[in-house]
């Protein structure tokens, strides 16, 4: 299943001009405030008619200006979690949730409904009207409403911003499962590198209405320093990993990656299978010799390949550990002290607790 979006849409003072082809899974739309994320999502949903362009989802042409074709919004089967919840004020939470389902004549699916309600923690709100709900409660109901409408494409515009960390931590695994099991592609707008890194297979960075970067999340993340709104703290790589074993007594899980073997907290990780691991450059410490007598459990031998970027106080180094690239951010002084020039052999030291659940996506 693919999503093709090639649209141009101009309003006074702002022009959205994108040409994208997105694959299945969860694709992140990333960019600073006012960069056109919501506009793009609205165009896809049919809420704004683009000045010109073509939108195709899974072979179905949703819009084609040249051919004069525009599928009415209600036939696009797009689930949309709006930036503002937009709940129906005259319906209680339950009816809000089931609105789309009811329209499609799918009254059933109790199990699915219950699962969503439970995941979102809105079981106690079902009989309430939206007016009294807190900001986060509204947002959760809005997420549930879109999820339950059986869409063929899910658009989520900053769905988790109103939520606390604990709630996010509960919802994210659900989104992972949705992404992997339901085959519903998701376009996910977010400002949070952590969310994007964990959830998104592909990532599109927008700025001023244009695509400034697009590709596998790992690759785009690696270049985050050069992105607008440079979120240096979050720069890093994504590695594919295989669960190769556990240490039950310590509740640690062993992952094999192209960079080497790593121990991470088990949490809810599966006992086998593939996951993805994000390693932030700022979490990587470099040592000339394998460290001993330290709490960090992971140490990957590697070679400095290049100095990717140089900031005022820090440098971003690209290492090759086995066959994989890993980034490390260290102070310029350390780089000088340890003579971290290309070709230098080093060890990338990583605390297991820094590789927590937020860094791993299933």
């Amino acid at each position: 299943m693919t999503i093709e979006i090639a649209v141009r849409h101009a309003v006074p003072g702002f022009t959205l001009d994108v040409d994208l082809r997105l694959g299945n899974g969860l694709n992140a739309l990333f960019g600073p405030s006012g960069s056109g994320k919501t506009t793009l999502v609205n165009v896809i949903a049919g809420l704004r008619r683009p000045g010109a362009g073509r939108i195709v989802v899974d072979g179905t042409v949703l819009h084609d200006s040249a051919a004069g074709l525009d599928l009415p919004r209600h036939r696009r089967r797009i689930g949309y979690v709006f930036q503002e919840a937009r709940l129906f004020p005259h319906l209680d939470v339950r009816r809000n949730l089931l609105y789309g389902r009811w329209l499609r004549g799918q009254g059933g699916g109790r199990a699915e409904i219950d699962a969503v309600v439970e995941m979102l923690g809105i079981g106690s709100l079902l009989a309430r009207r939206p007016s009294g709900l807190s900001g986060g409660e509204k947002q959760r109901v809005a997420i549930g409403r879109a999820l339950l409408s059986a869409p063929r494409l899910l658009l989520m515009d900053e769905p988790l911003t109103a939520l606390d960390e604990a709630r996010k931590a509960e919802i994210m695994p659900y989104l992972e499962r949705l992404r992997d099991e339901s085959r519903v592609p998701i376009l996910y707008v977010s400002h949070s590198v952590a969310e994007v890194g964990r959830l998104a297979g592909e990532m599109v960075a927008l700025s001023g209405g244009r695509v400034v970067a697009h590709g596998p999340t790992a690759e785009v993340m690696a270049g985050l320093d050069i992105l607008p709104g440079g979120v240096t703290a979050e720069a890093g790589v994504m590695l594919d990993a295989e669960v190769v074993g556990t240490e039950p007594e310590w509740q640690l899980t062993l992952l094999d990656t192209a960079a080497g073997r790593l121990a991470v907290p088990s949490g809810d990780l599966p006992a086998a299978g593939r996951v993805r691991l994000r390693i932030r450059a700022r979490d990587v410490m470099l040592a000339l010799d394998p460290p001993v007598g330290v709490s960090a459990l992971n140490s990957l031998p590697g070679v400095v390949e290049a100095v990717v970027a140089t900031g005022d106080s820090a440098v971003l180094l690209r290492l090759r550990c086995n066959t994989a690239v890993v980034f490390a951010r260290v102070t310029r002084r350390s780089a000088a002290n340890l003579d971290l020039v290309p070709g230098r052999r080093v060890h990338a030291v990583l605390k297991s607790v820094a590789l927590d659940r937020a860094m791993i996506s299933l």
Partner: protein
Amino acid sequence: MGRLAGFELSAEEWTAVALSLRVAAVATLFSLPPAVGVALLLARGRFPGHAILNGLVHLPLILPPVVTGYLLLIGFGRRGVIGAALAEHLGLVFSFRWTGAALAAAVMGFPLLVRAIRLAIEAVDRRLEDAAATLGAGPGIVFATVTLPLILPGILAGAILAFAKAMGEFGATITFVSNIPGETQTLASAIYTFMQVPGGDAGVLRLTLVSIAISMAALVASELLSRRIARRIETR
């Protein structure tokens, strides 16, 4: 009894009361659907005849009621273009029937109804309609499940205006279907009759009070209902 005697209604007056209620209720109910449609057109539509439709809707307000009654007579009377056709094909006769009184009341109340509903439609947050559309609701369903519930207070407000107007309307009614006791003599016509004769003031007062009582009851009921609806859809 003695002092109350003056306030007792004659059989004919009771008939007028019953007829007024029927006329006002039928007029209001039957004009609701077209009023909602026209209000929707006026609020949302962008078409060439917009101004003309808008003007047409307001016409019964602008024209002296007798002129409206006259026009109704010409159009919907036995010999009227529309009246003759309706009588022939649908068996629907207006002239000298209570149905004609209802038609007159409906026409006179129509601008009030449309305006109230239109204001309500214009106040609807269209983003909610957009949300419903993304959930798979076509225009009709969006209207029925989102717009309509949200404009209910406006519809109610308009209906109560139209009902009150129907209770008071007589200029167009009497001109169109005249004043036949038991058939087209509404409360308002009866009051008017009393106004025309010297010493009719007691009769005017009595029937006016009845008319006010009925309309007040309708008003209070509609207020309660609308408050209940409003509480359900408040956004605060």
